[in-house]
């Protein structure tokens, strides 16, 4: 439910909602485009209602029930939420997820920004841009499995090299201290190019004459980065951050194929716990309650980020 509410398709209803406004106006104008607009909106609206609004409402309802999908749901009031608050595994999952998000987004954003600036300031090569984007073309599951094999403690080529250099093998995905950072870095590797490209697009919107003027004034690249690039990139950076943080909170596939939550729940991220509760243990009510909690957490973080970064305003012009 939360997946649907915050993944890319969620932009459809926004677009649809914006487009609804002119429909109303058109009514008052004879020969307007109201019906035509409705026709074009209909598919998106249908998708929004069927795949987003209805599942969200139903998910919220189910979070107040005991439901195993095969027998009718039983109303339990706040039972699932009480259980959630008292469930140490839920809190641990939330903590592990936050740890993952901080590492993943922190490293990814800095690296993506560096790559984007280098792409903007040093080269115009589209081949390089293509290479930067290459890992993103791979599916998360494939990337996870490939890294799993590379990093395997006993057999992985990565650890063979480490051992060959005389160092101790590192249980990257099999040790509770290493596993989350490793998964975070695997996903940085896959997403950094895409994030860099988004930021790069933002950089292209910064007028070149600003840099020229600064150069005339004798500013260094470093100074120009902090005084021109960063302030003017802020709205784009803010949107990219909001999107990547939401995506990062929903990490699932990489964990599912590399560690499946282990060792000893060390990588049991919230989405995995929700999935396991629902589809492994058939506790759809409890899983729905946790999904609602995730929705609340994500909404709060998004609003906070939006406010703090003033994502809706630009300093340009």
């Amino acid at each position, binding site marked *: 439910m939360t997946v649907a509410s915050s993944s890319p398709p969620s932009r459809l209803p926004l677009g649809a909602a914006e487009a609804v406004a002119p429909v109303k106006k058109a009514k008052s104008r004879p020969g307007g485009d109201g019906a035509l607009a409705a*026709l074009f909106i209909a598919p998106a609206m249908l998708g929004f209602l069927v795949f987003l609004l209805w599942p969200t409402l139903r998910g919220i309802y189910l979070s107040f029930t005991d439901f195993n999908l095969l027998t009718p749901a039983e109303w339990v009031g706040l039972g699932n939420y009480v259980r959630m608050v008292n469930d140490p595994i839920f809190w641990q999952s939330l903590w592990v997820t936050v740890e993952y998000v901080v590492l993943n987004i922190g490293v990814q954003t800095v690296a993506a920004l560096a790559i984007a600036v280098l792409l903007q300031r040093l080269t115009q090569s589209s081949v390089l841009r293509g290479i930067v984007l290459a890992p993103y073309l791979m599916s998360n599951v494939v990337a996870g499995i490939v890294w799993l094999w590379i990093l395997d403690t006993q057999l992985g080529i990565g650890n063979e090299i480490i051992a060959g250099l005389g160092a101790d093998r590192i249980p990257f*995905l099999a040790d509770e201290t290493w596993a989350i950072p490793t998964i975070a870095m695997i996903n940085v590797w896959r997403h950094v190019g895409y994030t860099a490209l988004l930021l790069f697009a933002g950089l292209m919107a910064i007028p070149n004459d600003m840099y020229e003027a600064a150069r005339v004034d004798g500013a260094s690249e470093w100074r120009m980065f902090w005084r021109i690039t960063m302030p003017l990139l802020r709205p784009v950076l803010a949107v990219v951050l909001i999107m990547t943080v939401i995506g990062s909170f929903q990490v699932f596939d990489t964990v599912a194929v590399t560690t499946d939550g282990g060792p000893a729940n060390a990588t049991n991220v919230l989405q995995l716990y929700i999935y396991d509760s629902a589809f492994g243990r058939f506790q759809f009510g409890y899983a729905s309650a946790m999904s609602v909690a995730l929705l609340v957490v994500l909404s709060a973080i998004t609003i906070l980020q939006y406010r703090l970064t003033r994502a809706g305003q630009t300093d340009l012009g």
Partner: protein
Amino acid sequence: MRFRFRTVGALAGALALSLATGCAQGDGTGSSAKNTVTYWLWDANQLPAYEACAKGFEKQNPGLNVRITQMGWDDYWTKLTASFIAGTQPDVFTDHIQKFGQFADLQVLEPLDDLGINDSDYQPGLAANWTGQDGHRYGAPKDWDTVALFYNEKMAQDAGLSAEQLNTLSWNPKDGGSFEKAIAHLTIDRNGKRGDEPGFDKKNVKVYGLASKGGGYADGQTQWSSFAASAGWDYTDKKRWGTEYQFNDKTFQSVIKWYFGLAEKGYMAPLSDWNSQSNEGNVQVAAGKAASSLDGAWMISTYAGFKGMKTGTALTPEGPTGKRATMMNGLADSITKNARNKEGAKKWVKYLASNECQTTVGRYGIVFPATPDATDAAVAAYKKKGIDVSAFTEPVADKKDFTTFSYPITGYAADVQALMEPAMEDIYGNGKPVSSLDETNDQINLILDQ
């Protein structure tokens, strides 16, 4: 007016679309559903054997045909549960005890009482395990497996351990007995020193005596179950459908402490070397990283197929009770409650459970079927391939020196697994004390009390 016409058209289109999707749920099989029985299994190795069975069945039941679908273990259960929800379940499917408790809770299985299954027609205990708490039968016995020690023959030879020695090992939770001595001796560190030699470097082990099989979840089937059972422990208060687990038992905890202690001593690979996806016990043996691994009969062909390596098998070691113990688990065929072709499904399951079909399967030499005759056929087929399977069959035949025990069957099986998996990994990987199982056990029993 023009626009209104378009709107109506769009609405009609949308309606048609939704109707079309609605139809798809009805399954366009129509009358053919009456002639087809759908059957799912997960083991690709067994597919040819069951295709042969299906041919025999179709010959005896003109007009009926069996459509077999095979998919890997993980996908199998995901798809099966999804199919129950979506109403696209197979008529018949291969069932596992680990899942039986949950399916019984969810009431998705059809009772098979009228199939005339006699417990005595099968190896002891196999048929009885598939009776639910309500007293109805939900599975027809299909095959069985036990657990034994697979070892690299060359490594054993180099260590001066004969097949006879490995077959007569014993153990206890105090000093590990001759089993621990053998495992220690099979272990070699980076400098070539064996595990029982002075100066052995447990931090830099080249070959572990025993492969890591992970924490073993709640069953420890190919990990600690043989040791715990040979020390006289049982999972639950009752043989089947127990209401209390006994992970808080002191004997059990002493076994677990000793077993995971093997990793601390450097004789068994650490948890961090194990990965259910990339590095299972058999992979560690195949890669020469471990000299032996406890594993189930379903792995016989896998170990026999290692290129350039001969593997032998040995009985599980004798425990403090003076007996050897091995888990005897069996699969069954179950019919889904909402099967489209229930009549055909019942005929097919009856045939699958017959000596005729099971002997056909046995002749392929890939699994031990549930009937004694078919087991003999399988043993002969393995022998023909040059594989000695006595380490798996002896415990079933000899009740004096062996204890065979069943996979634990209780309600809330998925919850029990979910709680025990991290608890065991915490002990194995993070050195948590075994007494922490007291709390886990309380949590589990609380769930079972619901």
